Protein backbone atom coordinates (compact mmCIF):
# COMPACT_ATOMS: atom_id res chain seq x y z
CA UNK A 1 0.00 0.00 0.00
CA UNK A 2 2.70 2.41 1.03
CA UNK A 3 4.79 1.37 -1.93
CA UNK A 4 1.90 2.03 -4.27
CA UNK A 5 1.53 5.49 -2.85
CA UNK A 6 5.21 6.23 -3.42
CA UNK A 7 5.01 4.92 -6.95
CA UNK A 8 2.01 7.11 -7.66
CA UNK A 9 3.76 10.11 -6.20
CA UNK A 10 6.84 9.63 -8.36
CA UNK A 11 4.64 9.08 -11.39
CA UNK A 12 2.87 12.37 -10.84
CA UNK A 13 6.05 14.29 -10.14
CA UNK A 14 7.57 12.95 -13.35
CA UNK A 15 4.47 14.00 -15.22
CA UNK A 16 4.55 17.60 -14.02
CA UNK A 17 6.28 18.96 -17.15
CA UNK A 18 3.25 17.65 -19.02
CA UNK A 19 0.43 18.30 -16.60
CA UNK A 20 1.25 21.91 -15.69
CA UNK A 21 1.22 23.31 -19.25
CA UNK A 22 -1.80 21.13 -20.02
CA UNK A 23 -3.77 22.50 -17.11
CA UNK A 24 -2.99 26.10 -18.00
CA UNK A 25 -3.05 26.14 -21.78
CA UNK A 26 -5.44 23.32 -22.59
CA UNK A 27 -7.78 22.27 -19.83
CA UNK A 28 -8.43 25.77 -18.54
CA UNK A 29 -9.31 27.13 -22.00
CA UNK A 30 -11.57 24.15 -22.70
CA UNK A 31 -13.45 24.57 -19.42
CA UNK A 32 -13.60 28.30 -19.94
CA UNK A 33 -14.92 27.67 -23.46
CA UNK A 34 -17.56 25.34 -22.10
CA UNK A 35 -18.50 28.03 -19.58
CA UNK A 36 -18.68 30.76 -22.22
CA UNK A 37 -20.91 28.60 -24.39
CA UNK A 38 -23.72 29.02 -21.83
CA UNK A 39 -23.56 32.80 -22.07
CA UNK A 40 -24.37 35.44 -24.58
CA UNK A 41 -21.25 37.52 -24.81
CA UNK A 42 -19.04 39.51 -27.13
CA UNK A 43 -15.26 39.68 -27.57
CA UNK A 44 -13.69 42.39 -25.44
CA UNK A 45 -16.77 42.49 -23.23
CA UNK A 46 -16.43 39.07 -21.66
CA UNK A 47 -17.38 40.63 -18.31
CA UNK A 48 -20.72 41.87 -19.63
CA UNK A 49 -22.25 38.49 -20.26
CA UNK A 50 -25.66 37.11 -19.55
CA UNK A 51 -26.47 33.51 -18.76
CA UNK A 52 -28.70 31.93 -21.38
CA UNK A 53 -28.43 28.24 -20.54
CA UNK A 54 -28.57 25.96 -23.55
CA UNK A 55 -29.82 28.68 -25.90
CA UNK A 56 -26.59 28.74 -27.91
CA UNK A 57 -26.88 25.01 -28.46
CA UNK A 58 -30.58 25.24 -29.44
CA UNK A 59 -29.74 28.00 -31.86
CA UNK A 60 -27.06 25.73 -33.33
CA UNK A 61 -29.49 22.90 -33.67
CA UNK A 62 -31.97 24.97 -35.67
CA UNK A 63 -29.33 26.74 -37.76
CA UNK A 64 -29.18 25.13 -41.22
CA UNK A 65 -25.75 26.72 -41.67
CA UNK A 66 -24.42 24.65 -38.76
CA UNK A 67 -25.58 21.40 -40.36
CA UNK A 68 -24.01 22.37 -43.64
CA UNK A 69 -20.78 23.13 -41.73
CA UNK A 70 -20.86 19.64 -40.29
CA UNK A 71 -21.44 18.15 -43.72
CA UNK A 72 -18.51 20.16 -45.09
CA UNK A 73 -16.25 19.09 -42.21
CA UNK A 74 -17.12 15.44 -42.68
CA UNK A 75 -16.67 15.42 -46.43
CA UNK A 76 -13.44 17.42 -46.13
CA UNK A 77 -12.10 14.95 -43.57
CA UNK A 78 -13.32 11.87 -45.41
CA UNK A 79 -11.88 12.77 -48.81
CA UNK A 80 -8.65 14.17 -47.38
CA UNK A 81 -8.06 10.95 -45.45
CA UNK A 82 -8.97 8.67 -48.37
CA UNK A 83 -6.86 10.49 -50.96
CA UNK A 84 -3.95 10.85 -48.52
CA UNK A 85 -4.00 7.11 -47.78
CA UNK A 86 -4.06 6.16 -51.46
CA UNK A 87 -1.37 8.64 -52.51
CA UNK A 88 0.85 7.76 -49.55
CA UNK A 89 0.56 4.04 -50.21
CA UNK A 90 1.44 4.47 -53.89
CA UNK A 91 4.42 6.68 -53.06
CA UNK A 92 5.55 4.34 -50.27
CA UNK A 93 5.50 1.36 -52.66
CA UNK A 94 7.66 3.35 -55.04
CA UNK A 95 9.96 4.38 -52.20
CA UNK A 96 10.46 0.73 -51.31
CA UNK A 97 11.49 -0.24 -54.84
CA UNK A 98 15.17 -0.73 -55.56
CA UNK A 99 15.83 1.23 -58.71
CA UNK A 100 18.88 3.44 -59.15
CA UNK A 101 18.39 6.81 -57.47
CA UNK A 102 15.72 5.61 -55.06
CA UNK A 103 17.49 7.26 -52.10
CA UNK A 104 17.29 10.64 -53.81
CA UNK A 105 13.67 9.94 -54.64
CA UNK A 106 12.91 9.15 -50.99
CA UNK A 107 14.54 12.37 -49.84
CA UNK A 108 12.93 14.67 -52.40
CA UNK A 109 9.39 13.32 -52.51
CA UNK A 110 8.79 14.13 -48.84
CA UNK A 111 9.82 17.79 -49.08
CA UNK A 112 6.24 19.20 -49.06
CA UNK A 113 6.02 18.18 -45.43
CA UNK A 114 8.80 20.64 -44.59
CA UNK A 115 7.30 23.57 -46.49
CA UNK A 116 5.55 25.84 -43.98
CA UNK A 117 1.79 25.97 -44.61
CA UNK A 118 1.73 29.70 -45.19
CA UNK A 119 4.48 29.52 -47.80
CA UNK A 120 2.77 26.55 -49.44
CA UNK A 121 -0.49 28.45 -49.62
CA UNK A 122 1.10 31.54 -51.15
CA UNK A 123 2.53 29.46 -53.98
CA UNK A 124 -0.66 27.43 -54.51
CA UNK A 125 -2.68 30.63 -54.55
CA UNK A 126 -0.56 31.80 -57.45
CA UNK A 127 -0.58 28.45 -59.28
CA UNK A 128 -4.38 28.27 -58.97
CA UNK A 129 -4.93 31.88 -60.06
CA UNK A 130 -7.84 31.95 -62.50
CA UNK A 131 -6.31 34.33 -65.01
CA UNK A 132 -2.54 33.87 -64.89
CA UNK A 133 -2.22 30.65 -62.93
CA UNK A 134 -0.01 27.98 -64.44
CA UNK A 135 -2.49 25.18 -63.64
CA UNK A 136 -5.11 26.64 -65.95
CA UNK A 137 -2.40 27.11 -68.57
CA UNK A 138 -1.55 23.39 -68.44
CA UNK A 139 -5.23 22.44 -68.54
CA UNK A 140 -5.77 24.66 -71.57
CA UNK A 141 -2.90 22.92 -73.33
CA UNK A 142 -4.64 19.55 -73.04
CA UNK A 143 -7.98 20.97 -74.04
CA UNK A 144 -9.75 21.77 -70.77
CA UNK A 145 -11.15 25.20 -70.07
CA UNK A 146 -9.90 27.49 -67.32
CA UNK A 147 -11.50 27.36 -63.90
CA UNK A 148 -11.66 29.72 -60.97
CA UNK A 149 -10.49 27.01 -58.59
CA UNK A 150 -10.87 28.75 -55.27
CA UNK A 151 -13.72 31.07 -56.17
CA UNK A 152 -16.28 28.63 -57.53
CA UNK A 153 -18.51 26.71 -55.10
CA UNK A 154 -18.18 23.53 -57.21
CA UNK A 155 -14.37 23.38 -57.10
CA UNK A 156 -13.33 25.16 -53.89
CA UNK A 157 -13.63 22.20 -51.50
CA UNK A 158 -11.95 19.86 -53.99
CA UNK A 159 -9.06 22.31 -54.38
CA UNK A 160 -8.63 22.74 -50.63
CA UNK A 161 -8.57 18.94 -50.23
CA UNK A 162 -5.89 18.57 -52.90
CA UNK A 163 -3.64 21.18 -51.29
CA UNK A 164 -4.16 19.50 -47.89
CA UNK A 165 -3.20 16.11 -49.29
CA UNK A 166 -0.11 17.59 -50.93
CA UNK A 167 0.97 18.90 -47.52
CA UNK A 168 0.14 15.80 -45.42
CA UNK A 169 0.99 12.78 -47.56
CA UNK A 170 4.81 12.73 -46.93
CA UNK A 171 4.50 11.98 -43.23
CA UNK A 172 2.12 9.10 -43.93
CA UNK A 173 4.27 7.82 -46.79
CA UNK A 174 7.37 7.70 -44.57
CA UNK A 175 5.48 5.70 -41.96
CA UNK A 176 4.04 3.37 -44.61
CA UNK A 177 7.52 2.83 -46.01
CA UNK A 178 8.78 1.70 -42.61
CA UNK A 179 5.77 -0.60 -42.37
CA UNK A 180 6.44 -2.07 -45.81
CA UNK A 181 10.07 -2.68 -44.92
CA UNK A 182 8.91 -4.67 -41.91
CA UNK A 183 7.02 -7.22 -44.02
CA UNK A 184 9.10 -10.44 -44.29
CA UNK A 185 10.54 -10.83 -47.79
CA UNK A 186 9.83 -14.57 -47.66
CA UNK A 187 6.12 -13.89 -48.10
CA UNK A 188 6.76 -12.17 -51.41
CA UNK A 189 9.24 -14.80 -52.56
CA UNK A 190 6.73 -17.54 -51.88
CA UNK A 191 4.10 -15.59 -53.80
CA UNK A 192 6.51 -15.12 -56.72
CA UNK A 193 7.03 -18.87 -56.91
CA UNK A 194 3.27 -19.31 -57.05
CA UNK A 195 3.25 -16.81 -59.88
CA UNK A 196 1.20 -14.13 -58.13
CA UNK A 197 0.70 -10.82 -59.93
CA UNK A 198 1.66 -7.46 -58.43
CA UNK A 199 -1.98 -6.75 -57.62
CA UNK A 200 -2.49 -10.12 -55.95
CA UNK A 201 0.60 -9.64 -53.81
CA UNK A 202 -0.63 -6.19 -52.86
CA UNK A 203 -4.09 -7.41 -51.85
CA UNK A 204 -3.12 -10.67 -50.14
CA UNK A 205 0.22 -9.79 -48.55
CA UNK A 206 0.81 -6.04 -48.32
CA UNK A 207 -2.62 -4.86 -47.15
CA UNK A 208 -3.14 -7.54 -44.45
CA UNK A 209 0.37 -7.01 -43.05
CA UNK A 210 -0.14 -3.25 -43.02
CA UNK A 211 -3.63 -3.26 -41.51
CA UNK A 212 -2.57 -1.85 -38.15
CA UNK A 213 -0.29 0.82 -39.55
CA UNK A 214 -2.96 1.92 -42.00
CA UNK A 215 -5.56 2.19 -39.25
CA UNK A 216 -3.23 4.07 -36.91
CA UNK A 217 -2.38 6.54 -39.65
CA UNK A 218 -6.07 6.92 -40.53
CA UNK A 219 -6.78 7.93 -36.94
CA UNK A 220 -3.98 10.44 -36.94
CA UNK A 221 -4.81 12.12 -40.24
CA UNK A 222 -8.52 12.14 -39.44
CA UNK A 223 -7.74 14.07 -36.27
CA UNK A 224 -5.54 16.46 -38.22
CA UNK A 225 -8.21 16.96 -40.88
CA UNK A 226 -10.96 17.60 -38.33
CA UNK A 227 -9.01 20.37 -36.64
CA UNK A 228 -7.21 21.84 -39.64
CA UNK A 229 -7.34 25.58 -39.78
CA UNK A 230 -4.71 27.55 -41.61
CA UNK A 231 -4.74 25.79 -44.97
CA UNK A 232 -8.48 26.33 -45.35
CA UNK A 233 -8.55 29.74 -43.77
CA UNK A 234 -5.75 31.19 -45.89
CA UNK A 235 -6.98 29.64 -49.14
CA UNK A 236 -10.69 30.46 -48.95
CA UNK A 237 -11.64 31.80 -45.51
CA UNK A 238 -14.49 29.30 -45.68
CA UNK A 239 -15.91 30.68 -48.93
CA UNK A 240 -17.19 30.87 -51.61
CA UNK A 241 -20.77 30.74 -50.34
CA UNK A 242 -19.34 29.07 -47.21
CA UNK A 243 -18.75 25.85 -49.17
CA UNK A 244 -15.41 25.28 -47.42
CA UNK A 245 -16.52 26.39 -43.97
CA UNK A 246 -15.51 23.58 -41.61
CA UNK A 247 -16.12 23.60 -37.86
CA UNK A 248 -12.72 25.16 -37.11
CA UNK A 249 -13.34 27.94 -39.62
CA UNK A 250 -16.86 28.45 -38.31
CA UNK A 251 -15.59 28.88 -34.73
CA UNK A 252 -13.09 31.48 -35.88
CA UNK A 253 -15.62 33.30 -38.08
CA UNK A 254 -18.19 33.53 -35.31
CA UNK A 255 -15.66 34.55 -32.69
CA UNK A 256 -13.50 37.05 -34.54
CA UNK A 257 -15.74 38.22 -37.39
CA UNK A 258 -19.21 38.29 -35.85
CA UNK A 259 -17.82 38.57 -32.29
CA UNK A 260 -20.30 36.04 -30.91
CA UNK A 261 -18.11 34.34 -28.36
CA UNK A 262 -20.81 32.23 -26.73
CA UNK A 263 -22.11 30.90 -30.00
CA UNK A 264 -18.58 30.24 -31.29
CA UNK A 265 -17.75 28.27 -28.16
CA UNK A 266 -20.91 26.21 -28.54
CA UNK A 267 -19.82 25.29 -32.07
CA UNK A 268 -16.35 24.39 -30.81
CA UNK A 269 -17.65 22.18 -28.00
CA UNK A 270 -19.99 20.38 -30.40
CA UNK A 271 -17.03 19.95 -32.73
CA UNK A 272 -14.96 18.28 -30.01
CA UNK A 273 -17.84 15.91 -29.23
CA UNK A 274 -18.19 14.94 -32.89
CA UNK A 275 -14.42 14.35 -33.23
CA UNK A 276 -14.60 12.22 -30.12
CA UNK A 277 -17.35 10.07 -31.58
CA UNK A 278 -15.41 9.54 -34.82
CA UNK A 279 -12.17 8.65 -33.05
CA UNK A 280 -14.03 6.25 -30.76
CA UNK A 281 -15.46 4.52 -33.80
CA UNK A 282 -11.93 4.11 -35.14
CA UNK A 283 -10.70 2.61 -31.89
CA UNK A 284 -13.61 0.23 -31.93
CA UNK A 285 -12.51 -0.96 -35.37
CA UNK A 286 -8.87 -1.07 -34.30
CA UNK A 287 -9.77 -3.31 -31.39
CA UNK A 288 -11.75 -5.63 -33.66
CA UNK A 289 -8.80 -5.84 -36.04
CA UNK A 290 -6.53 -6.82 -33.20
Amino acid at each position, binding site marked *: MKKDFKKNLIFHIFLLPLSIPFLIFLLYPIIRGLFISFYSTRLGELDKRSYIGFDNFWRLFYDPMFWSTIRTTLSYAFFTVMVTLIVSMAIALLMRAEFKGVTIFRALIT*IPWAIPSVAAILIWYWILDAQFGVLNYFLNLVGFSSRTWLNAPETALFTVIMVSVWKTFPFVAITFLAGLQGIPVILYEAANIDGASFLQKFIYITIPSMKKVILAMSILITMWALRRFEIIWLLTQGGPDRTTETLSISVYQNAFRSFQMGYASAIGITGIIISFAIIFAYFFVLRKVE
Partner: protein
Amino acid sequence: MKLNYLKQQITALISIAVILFPMYWMLNTSLQVERNLFRAVPSFIPIPIQLTAYKRLLNGPSFIWLANTAFVAIVTSILTILASIFPSYALSRIKVRIKKPYLFLILFTQMVPPALLIIPLFVLFRRYGLLNSLWGLVMLNSTFSLPIGIWVLKDFFDTVPSEIDQAAIIDGCSTVQVIWKVYIPLSASAIVAVGTLAFFVAWNEFLFASVMLFDQSKWVSSVGLASFIGFLSTPLDEVLAGALIFSLPAVVFFLLIQRNMQTGITAGALKS
Protein backbone atom coordinates in the same frame (compact mmCIF):
# COMPACT_ATOMS: atom_id res chain seq x y z
CA MET B 1 13.74 -6.98 -64.64
CA LYS B 2 15.72 -4.16 -66.31
CA LEU B 3 12.53 -2.92 -67.91
CA ASN B 4 10.83 -2.97 -64.53
CA TYR B 5 13.50 -0.69 -63.05
CA LEU B 6 13.15 1.70 -65.94
CA LYS B 7 9.38 1.85 -65.46
CA GLN B 8 9.86 2.58 -61.76
CA GLN B 9 12.41 5.26 -62.49
CA ILE B 10 10.08 6.97 -64.93
CA THR B 11 7.18 6.82 -62.47
CA ALA B 12 9.44 8.23 -59.76
CA LEU B 13 10.55 11.07 -62.03
CA ILE B 14 7.00 11.96 -62.97
CA SER B 15 5.81 11.98 -59.37
CA ILE B 16 8.76 14.14 -58.31
CA ALA B 17 8.00 16.55 -61.15
CA VAL B 18 4.34 16.82 -60.17
CA ILE B 19 4.83 17.02 -56.43
CA LEU B 20 7.79 19.38 -56.43
CA PHE B 21 6.46 21.59 -59.20
CA PRO B 22 5.14 24.21 -56.72
CA MET B 23 8.66 24.61 -55.32
CA TYR B 24 10.09 25.14 -58.78
CA TRP B 25 7.34 27.59 -59.56
CA MET B 26 8.07 29.53 -56.39
CA LEU B 27 11.73 29.88 -57.37
CA ASN B 28 10.91 30.69 -60.97
CA THR B 29 8.38 33.38 -60.07
CA SER B 30 10.68 35.01 -57.56
CA LEU B 31 13.39 35.43 -60.20
CA GLN B 32 11.18 36.69 -63.04
CA VAL B 33 11.05 40.19 -64.42
CA GLU B 34 7.68 41.54 -63.38
CA ARG B 35 6.28 42.02 -66.87
CA ASN B 36 6.85 38.30 -67.54
CA LEU B 37 4.60 37.26 -64.68
CA PHE B 38 1.25 38.25 -66.10
CA ARG B 39 1.31 36.81 -69.58
CA ALA B 40 -1.04 34.47 -71.38
CA VAL B 41 1.83 32.01 -71.83
CA PRO B 42 3.75 31.81 -68.56
CA SER B 43 7.53 32.01 -68.69
CA PHE B 44 9.08 28.80 -67.39
CA ILE B 45 12.69 29.90 -67.22
CA PRO B 46 13.62 33.24 -65.70
CA ILE B 47 15.44 35.13 -68.45
CA PRO B 48 16.85 37.52 -67.48
CA ILE B 49 17.30 36.45 -63.88
CA GLN B 50 16.53 39.35 -61.65
CA LEU B 51 17.24 39.44 -57.95
CA THR B 52 15.50 42.70 -57.15
CA ALA B 53 12.75 40.87 -55.27
CA TYR B 54 15.34 39.57 -52.83
CA LYS B 55 16.99 42.99 -52.55
CA ARG B 56 13.64 44.57 -51.73
CA LEU B 57 13.08 41.88 -49.09
CA LEU B 58 16.38 42.76 -47.47
CA ASN B 59 15.14 46.30 -46.90
CA GLY B 60 11.81 45.13 -45.52
CA PRO B 61 10.98 43.52 -42.18
CA SER B 62 11.21 39.95 -43.54
CA PHE B 63 14.49 39.15 -41.88
CA ILE B 64 13.30 40.35 -38.48
CA TRP B 65 10.33 38.00 -38.91
CA LEU B 66 12.65 35.20 -39.87
CA ALA B 67 14.84 35.81 -36.82
CA ASN B 68 11.73 35.81 -34.62
CA THR B 69 10.59 32.55 -36.19
CA ALA B 70 14.01 30.98 -35.64
CA PHE B 71 14.02 32.08 -32.01
CA VAL B 72 10.55 30.67 -31.38
CA ALA B 73 11.26 27.41 -33.21
CA ILE B 74 14.61 26.73 -31.53
CA VAL B 75 13.43 27.52 -28.01
CA THR B 76 10.24 25.51 -28.55
CA SER B 77 12.27 22.58 -29.75
CA ILE B 78 14.59 22.63 -26.72
CA LEU B 79 11.73 23.07 -24.26
CA THR B 80 9.76 20.25 -25.83
CA ILE B 81 12.69 17.87 -25.57
CA LEU B 82 13.32 18.77 -21.93
CA ALA B 83 9.66 18.55 -20.99
CA SER B 84 9.00 15.25 -22.73
CA ILE B 85 11.75 13.12 -21.15
CA PHE B 86 10.37 12.58 -17.64
CA PRO B 87 6.71 12.15 -18.61
CA SER B 88 7.72 9.69 -21.34
CA TYR B 89 9.73 7.66 -18.86
CA ALA B 90 6.90 7.66 -16.34
CA LEU B 91 4.32 6.64 -18.93
CA SER B 92 6.57 3.94 -20.29
CA ARG B 93 8.09 2.43 -17.15
CA ILE B 94 6.23 3.25 -13.94
CA LYS B 95 3.41 0.78 -13.42
CA VAL B 96 0.43 2.62 -11.99
CA ARG B 97 -3.31 2.35 -12.50
CA ILE B 98 -3.83 5.94 -13.57
CA LYS B 99 -1.67 5.62 -16.69
CA LYS B 100 -4.51 4.92 -19.12
CA PRO B 101 -6.36 8.22 -18.51
CA TYR B 102 -3.13 10.12 -19.09
CA LEU B 103 -2.44 8.35 -22.35
CA PHE B 104 -5.98 9.09 -23.40
CA LEU B 105 -5.59 12.74 -22.44
CA ILE B 106 -2.55 12.99 -24.70
CA LEU B 107 -4.54 11.59 -27.57
CA PHE B 108 -7.43 13.89 -26.74
CA THR B 109 -5.25 16.97 -27.29
CA GLN B 110 -4.94 16.00 -30.92
CA MET B 111 -8.69 16.30 -31.31
CA VAL B 112 -9.25 19.75 -29.86
CA PRO B 113 -9.51 22.39 -32.57
CA PRO B 114 -7.03 25.14 -31.61
CA ALA B 115 -9.50 27.68 -32.97
CA LEU B 116 -11.70 26.94 -29.95
CA LEU B 117 -8.91 27.60 -27.46
CA ILE B 118 -7.99 30.92 -28.96
CA ILE B 119 -10.67 32.95 -27.18
CA PRO B 120 -9.91 31.92 -23.57
CA LEU B 121 -6.17 31.91 -24.25
CA PHE B 122 -6.36 35.43 -25.58
CA VAL B 123 -8.10 36.58 -22.39
CA LEU B 124 -5.56 34.71 -20.25
CA PHE B 125 -2.59 36.16 -22.13
CA ARG B 126 -4.00 39.67 -21.89
CA ARG B 127 -4.36 39.38 -18.13
CA TYR B 128 -0.76 38.22 -17.62
CA GLY B 129 0.88 40.52 -20.14
CA LEU B 130 1.89 37.71 -22.49
CA LEU B 131 0.29 39.24 -25.55
CA ASN B 132 2.71 40.43 -28.17
CA SER B 133 5.53 38.40 -26.63
CA LEU B 134 7.56 35.73 -28.36
CA TRP B 135 7.93 33.89 -25.05
CA GLY B 136 4.17 33.58 -24.80
CA LEU B 137 4.12 32.02 -28.24
CA VAL B 138 6.96 29.67 -27.24
CA MET B 139 4.88 28.46 -24.28
CA LEU B 140 1.87 27.71 -26.48
CA ASN B 141 3.92 26.00 -29.18
CA SER B 142 5.74 23.86 -26.63
CA THR B 143 2.49 22.83 -24.99
CA PHE B 144 0.99 21.76 -28.28
CA SER B 145 4.03 19.88 -29.53
CA LEU B 146 4.45 18.05 -26.23
CA PRO B 147 1.82 15.36 -26.94
CA ILE B 148 3.53 14.33 -30.19
CA GLY B 149 6.92 14.49 -28.47
CA ILE B 150 5.81 12.28 -25.61
CA TRP B 151 4.05 9.91 -27.96
CA VAL B 152 7.25 9.37 -29.98
CA LEU B 153 9.58 9.19 -27.00
CA LYS B 154 7.37 6.92 -24.90
CA ASP B 155 7.10 4.47 -27.78
CA PHE B 156 10.86 4.50 -28.06
CA PHE B 157 11.39 3.99 -24.32
CA ASP B 158 9.01 1.02 -24.54
CA THR B 159 11.54 -0.73 -26.76
CA VAL B 160 14.32 -0.41 -24.18
CA PRO B 161 14.53 -3.74 -22.29
CA SER B 162 13.49 -3.10 -18.68
CA GLU B 163 16.24 -5.42 -17.36
CA ILE B 164 18.57 -2.47 -17.92
CA ASP B 165 16.66 -0.47 -15.29
CA GLN B 166 16.90 -3.24 -12.75
CA ALA B 167 20.59 -3.79 -13.38
CA ALA B 168 21.33 -0.09 -12.99
CA ILE B 169 19.26 0.15 -9.82
CA ILE B 170 21.10 -2.81 -8.31
CA ASP B 171 24.31 -0.94 -9.13
CA GLY B 172 22.97 1.86 -6.94
CA CYS B 173 21.63 4.26 -9.54
CA SER B 174 18.57 6.37 -8.73
CA THR B 175 15.72 6.53 -11.25
CA VAL B 176 16.84 9.99 -12.37
CA GLN B 177 20.35 8.64 -12.96
CA VAL B 178 18.95 5.73 -14.93
CA ILE B 179 17.11 8.15 -17.20
CA TRP B 180 20.13 10.38 -17.55
CA LYS B 181 22.75 7.69 -18.09
CA VAL B 182 20.81 4.97 -19.84
CA TYR B 183 17.65 6.20 -21.50
CA ILE B 184 18.85 9.49 -22.93
CA PRO B 185 21.98 8.12 -24.64
CA LEU B 186 20.04 5.10 -25.93
CA SER B 187 17.28 7.17 -27.47
CA ALA B 188 19.35 9.94 -29.05
CA SER B 189 17.68 9.46 -32.43
CA ALA B 190 14.19 9.62 -30.94
CA ILE B 191 15.11 12.74 -28.96
CA VAL B 192 16.39 14.43 -32.09
CA ALA B 193 13.15 13.41 -33.81
CA VAL B 194 11.11 14.99 -31.02
CA GLY B 195 13.11 18.20 -31.28
CA THR B 196 12.67 18.25 -35.03
CA LEU B 197 8.92 17.69 -34.84
CA ALA B 198 8.60 20.53 -32.33
CA PHE B 199 10.79 22.74 -34.49
CA PHE B 200 8.48 22.18 -37.46
CA VAL B 201 5.34 22.74 -35.40
CA ALA B 202 6.72 26.09 -34.25
CA TRP B 203 8.14 27.10 -37.64
CA ASN B 204 4.77 26.36 -39.24
CA GLU B 205 2.43 27.72 -36.61
CA PHE B 206 0.11 30.44 -37.79
CA LEU B 207 -3.14 30.64 -35.81
CA PHE B 208 -1.78 31.46 -32.35
CA ALA B 209 0.89 33.77 -33.73
CA SER B 210 -1.65 35.72 -35.77
CA VAL B 211 -3.87 36.33 -32.75
CA MET B 212 -1.22 36.86 -30.07
CA LEU B 213 1.34 39.07 -31.84
CA PHE B 214 0.29 42.45 -33.16
CA ASP B 215 3.39 44.63 -33.54
CA GLN B 216 4.96 44.16 -36.94
CA SER B 217 8.37 43.95 -35.28
CA LYS B 218 7.17 40.99 -33.18
CA TRP B 219 5.62 39.07 -36.06
CA VAL B 220 6.93 35.68 -37.10
CA SER B 221 7.32 34.86 -40.78
CA SER B 222 4.06 32.92 -41.06
CA VAL B 223 2.07 35.96 -39.92
CA GLY B 224 4.14 38.39 -41.96
CA LEU B 225 3.80 36.35 -45.14
CA ALA B 226 0.09 35.74 -44.59
CA SER B 227 -0.36 39.50 -44.56
CA PHE B 228 0.78 39.43 -48.20
CA ILE B 229 -2.15 37.26 -49.27
CA GLY B 230 -4.34 39.09 -51.72
CA PHE B 231 -1.33 40.35 -53.68
CA LEU B 232 -2.43 43.96 -53.65
CA SER B 233 0.20 45.83 -51.71
CA THR B 234 3.27 43.66 -52.28
CA PRO B 235 4.55 42.62 -55.72
CA LEU B 236 4.17 38.93 -56.52
CA ASP B 237 7.86 38.20 -57.07
CA GLU B 238 8.62 39.63 -53.65
CA VAL B 239 5.86 37.58 -51.98
CA LEU B 240 7.21 34.35 -53.42
CA ALA B 241 10.82 35.30 -52.71
CA GLY B 242 9.68 35.73 -49.10
CA ALA B 243 7.90 32.37 -49.14
CA LEU B 244 11.04 30.76 -50.53
CA ILE B 245 13.34 32.23 -47.91
CA PHE B 246 10.88 31.18 -45.23
CA SER B 247 10.76 27.60 -46.58
CA LEU B 248 14.46 27.17 -47.25
CA PRO B 249 15.78 26.71 -43.69
CA ALA B 250 13.00 24.22 -42.95
CA VAL B 251 13.68 22.21 -46.11
CA VAL B 252 17.45 22.15 -45.58
CA PHE B 253 17.00 21.12 -41.97
CA PHE B 254 14.51 18.46 -43.00
CA LEU B 255 16.84 16.98 -45.64
CA LEU B 256 19.72 16.87 -43.16
CA ILE B 257 17.70 15.21 -40.46
CA GLN B 258 15.47 13.01 -42.60
CA ARG B 259 17.18 9.69 -42.14
CA ASN B 260 17.30 10.12 -38.40
CA MET B 261 13.63 11.15 -38.39
CA GLN B 262 12.67 7.94 -40.09
CA THR B 263 14.44 5.73 -37.58
CA GLY B 264 13.42 7.92 -34.64
CA ILE B 265 9.72 8.12 -35.39
CA THR B 266 8.98 4.85 -37.03
CA ALA B 267 10.80 2.63 -34.58
CA GLY B 268 8.15 3.44 -32.02
CA ALA B 269 5.20 4.28 -34.22
CA LEU B 270 5.15 0.90 -35.88
CA LYS B 271 5.14 -1.01 -32.68
CA SER B 272 2.22 0.83 -31.11
